[in-house]
């Protein structure tokens, strides 16, 4: 009880003090006008919400493809078959390359470069190339997450499966893979949260998503409140998902503990 009381008091003192300091500062009135203007918020809101629907569409399309491609890359990288070495080499090169380049650069290169090729059957839409760039980049990270999960499965599990007569592929699909994927569900969700924010980078090549709409509003009206509106929309999705991930992590830690003591 006492500690709760102290926590409340110290929180009020700290944040109250900060608010007081900021509101007393010389430029506060101007900042309040530029960033926290209620009329501008209302005026910008519909367009920004409209743009945000595009962000949602982009990450909903990208995520399943990223998961599938990441898993495929991880399996290619982990295979030890001599005949399939080219696949392994490709996966290593791919992951090194796309983890090494900033996502923004990949978006710019694809978004401006591919339509510039003027190949008639290639789509010219910047949304298409923006989403493609995000997929290429995130798939490399996701592949490494899957690989960590698969490698965390104890070799004795594989030995047990093989001893029952399962061949190498069966032991992998039925025993190793399901355990490996389960182990990395929380980090995969973290990646999903990061992906939602990455969709804002696509604004650099033109699509009218939330950040871009907010930018248009601010440059037409000399007011930045529209950015606050965009930020609130991102937060409305990312914070609940973050809490959900925390809950999953806690639950899996608790289950592991149960498993140890049983």
């Amino acid at each position, binding site marked *: 009880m006492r500690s709760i009381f102290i926590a409340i008091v110290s929180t009020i003192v700290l944040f109250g003090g900060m608010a007081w300091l900021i509101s007393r500062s010389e430029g506060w009135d101007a900042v309040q006008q530029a960033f926290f203007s209620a009329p501008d918020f209302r005026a910008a809101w519909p367009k920004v919400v409209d743009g945000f629907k595009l962000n949602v569409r982009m990450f909903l399309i990208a995520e399943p493809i990223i998961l599938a491609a990441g898993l495929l890359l991880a399996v290619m990288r982990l295979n030890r078959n001599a005949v399939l070495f080219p696949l392994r080499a490709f996966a290593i090169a791919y992951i090194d390359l796309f983890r090494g380049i900033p996502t923004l650069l990949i978006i710019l290169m694809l978004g401006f470069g591919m339509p510039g090729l003027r190949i008639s059957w290639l789509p010219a839409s910047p949304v298409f190339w923006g989403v493609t760039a995000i997929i290429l980049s995130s798939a490399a990270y996701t592949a490494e997450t899957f690989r960590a999960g698969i490698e965390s499965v104890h070799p*004795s*599990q594989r*030995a*047990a*499966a*093989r*001893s*029952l*007569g*399962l*061949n190498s592929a*069966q032991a992998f699909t*039925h*025993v190793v893979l*399901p*355990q490996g994927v*389960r182990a990395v569900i929380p980090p995969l969700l973290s990646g999903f949260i990061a992906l939602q924010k990455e969709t804002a980078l696509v604004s650099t090549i033109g699509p009218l998503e939330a950040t871009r709409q907010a930018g248009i509003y601010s440059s037409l009206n000399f007011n930045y409140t529209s950015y606050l509106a965009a930020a609130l929309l991102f937060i409305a999705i990312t914070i609940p998902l973050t809490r959900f991930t925390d809950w999953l992590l806690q639950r899996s830690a608790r*289950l592991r503990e*149960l*498993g140890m003591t*049983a």
Partner: protein
Amino acid sequence: MTAPLIAYRGVYKAYGQHLVLRNINLDIPEHSVTCLIGASGCGKSTLLRCTNLLEEIQHGEIILSGRDIAQAQDDADAIRKRVGMVFQSYNLFPHMTVLQNITLAPRRVLRRPMNECAEEARVLLQRFGLADKANEYPDRLSGGQQQRIAIIRALAMQPEVLLLDEITSALDPEMVGEVLDIIVELKDLGMTMIMATHQMGFARQIADQVVFLDGGEILERNEPNAFFDTPQHDRTKQFLHRVMSAG
């Protein structure tokens, strides 16, 4: 005299420069129980893992029903179907229920229908007093229950021989009995078993032959009473003295 079910002929196994099995020659008659004893690192587990082709041997023959399996790496999966193995650490699949653990190999390897496999699994669970655990996950079970289910999982493939690798070493003492009871029952049913163990009392009770391994070699082999009452080799005497006085 009928041919043995398994015959080891001049088996050598090395990890790099380190020889872990030297010139192993041993016959395993059908329906017999063989206990492998010896200090940790003497090669008991390695011999079992080689028999199940989880490890390759460098030299010699392991003959199963008249056929050398040691060089049959391309056909290893077919051999493993016939040779069951139970591990010290149970190695149940934690993401599957007990029933799924038991039916996985019959379904995927023998390609038999699920309802048939499940029916047989339930019969086995019933016989070993675990019928109510069919839909539990392994982490809800005690070590003794998990190990009994690991044995049932191996039995579900109807193996010709069962390899038991220190199956009671990871268990709390009060759970050892329930696992060993299954082994006694299997012996009565005529199952051929090779068992690496530290349980000397149990080895004397159940074994048809006891094999003492030291430094990767078979130093002594005898029927159990003679082996424990009148060990021939000095190393055997020392080893038995140490484990007996340790209780």
